[in-house]
């Protein structure tokens, strides 16, 4: 029983990181209806930017983190202004394929610039284990959980209470309506992509600080697909729930069925979810008519 609780806690805590990784996908999908397959590469890119500013330029990690988030924000805006603008009005599938291509380009470029070898980021999160009662949670898992939840909570508050956030939600809810009340929808879309990329860059730094950094860091983001489908692609609260469920599930699977099943278990659950709620990955609401 104690083992069960311990694995549960560790699993749930590691789910926090999943939730943070899923956040960027949800922001873009909710805001612009696009599933951004390059989100993982934006994470990877963020981690490399952090590495460059922190280690190569020798600046304090806090400055490096700030620079990373700003850089990611601008990258997101730039992607929206160029790739997305150019494809406006094209079928959704073309746009999604363009994000796949973009991801590949970013991955290739990172390999050219920073090389394929593994890099190590400084220890941003304390490794010292945390004890809750007599249950041990690894420090990295615990702190990444806390940080992830804080970031997602900040996002939730932002969308709930600030005018910028409400404006973004409005534009996401109905573009026609948004135009009608005078919202500059293209600018809001660009900001949404910027915000999602910033969340991705931040997640990338955290992820690379816990694991290692190679140009393939972004591949991990696809493991978040399960989180997105369980939690719902357009729900911030769903991201938390989905992340924690998948984290718990993986931990349980690893503990009771063996490590080799850890990676497939989430997708078995996803299949089950899709069978019950078939409007899965690209299931969109009705088309607007004015």
């Amino acid at each position, binding site marked *: 029983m104690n083992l069960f609780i311990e694995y549960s806690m560790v699993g749930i805590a590691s789910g926090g990181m999943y939730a943070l990784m899923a956040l960027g996908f949800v922001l873009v999908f909710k805001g612009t209806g696009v599933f951004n397959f390059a989100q993982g590469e934006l994470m990877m890119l963020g981690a490399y930017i952090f590495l460059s500013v922190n280690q190569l330029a020798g600046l304090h990690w806090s400055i490096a983190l700030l620079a990373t988030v700003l850089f990611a924000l601008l990258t997101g805006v730039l992607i929206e202004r160029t790739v997305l603008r150019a494809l406006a009005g094209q079928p959704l599938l073309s746009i999604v394929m363009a994000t796949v291509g973009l991801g590949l380009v970013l991955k290739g470029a990172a390999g050219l610039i920073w090389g394929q070898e593994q890099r190590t980021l400084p220890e941003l999160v304390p490794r010292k284990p945390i004890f809750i009662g007599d249950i041990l949670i690894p420090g990295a898992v615990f702190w990444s959980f806390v940080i992830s939840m804080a970031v997602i909570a900040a996002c939730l508050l*932002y969308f709930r*209470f*600030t*005018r*910028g*956030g*409400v*404006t973004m*939600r*409005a534009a996401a*809810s*109905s573009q*026609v*309506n*948004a*135009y*009608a*009340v*005078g*919202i*500059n*929808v293209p*600018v*809001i879309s660009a*900001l949404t992509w910027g915000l999602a990329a910033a969340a991705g860059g931040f997640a990338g730094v955290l992820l690379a600080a816990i694991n290692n950094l190679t140009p393939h860091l972004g591949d991990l983001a696809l493991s978040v697909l399960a989180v997105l489908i369980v939690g719902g692609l357009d729900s911030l609260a769903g991201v938390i729930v989905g992340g924690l469920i998948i984290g718990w599930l993986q931990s349980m699977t690893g503990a009771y069925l063996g490590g080799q099943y850890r990676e497939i278990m989430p997708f078995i659950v996803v299949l089950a979810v899709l069978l019950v709620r078939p409007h899965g990955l690209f299931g969109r609401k009705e088309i607007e*008519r*004015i």
Partner: protein
Amino acid sequence: MGWACLEIDAAMSLLEIRDVSLAFGGVKALTGVSLAVEEGTVTSVIGPNGAGKTSLYNVISGFYRPQSGAVAFAGADITLVKANRRAALGMARTFQNIALFRGLTVLDNIKLGAHHYLKSGVLPAAWYIGSAAREEAQLRGKIERDIVDLLHLADFRDAPVSALSYGLQKRVELARALAMRPKLLMLDEPVAGMNREEKEDMARYILDVREEWGVTVLLIEHDMGMVMDLSDQIHVLNFGQKLSSGTPDQVRADPAVIEAYLGEG
């Protein structure tokens, strides 16, 4: 387009549609439609289903660009002005199918109507600092006093709009349009699907708004009783063309109108 402005005479109308044509592929939604809306009036656009009424609204509010013709508002040619810029010029509209921001509360929906005249941009407002917060508080107070109370929405202000009845949702849409402080309020079938009592309420709100705010109202409505009661001026569309214009009495007596309405069987 300087010459276009000169064409408008001194005692100008608030809104002028000049020879507008709009087609979707082979479907001619509007053909050579010209009409004017005088300041301070309630002006209605009527016509059978598919006559092009909503298309006309979409041209006026900038969602569709007409293939030919011009739209002038408050003396300026706005044919090429983007849809989101027209709010600041003083246009507000409601939609035939309820178009609220689902997932947002009643008050958030209404407040979004004020988006275009809040001075603090979205970015400072994003961080909710200083003057942005003060402006927000003032706006909230003003909207509560002037609009929420006028339309009797106080009890629902914090409810998500999707939880409201159909009639109430229509009222929230009107409230949001009012929060835009428009010169021209364009309503697309504001009482469609309402019961008698709700219809009477809505008609009263429309008259109140004109009385208290001096707003010019443009109305699309199939409820002939309401149209005849409220309108100063009526324009009739049929198959994308203007069939008739005049006061309610003139339009009612126009043989072409009678035929269009009775003839369609």
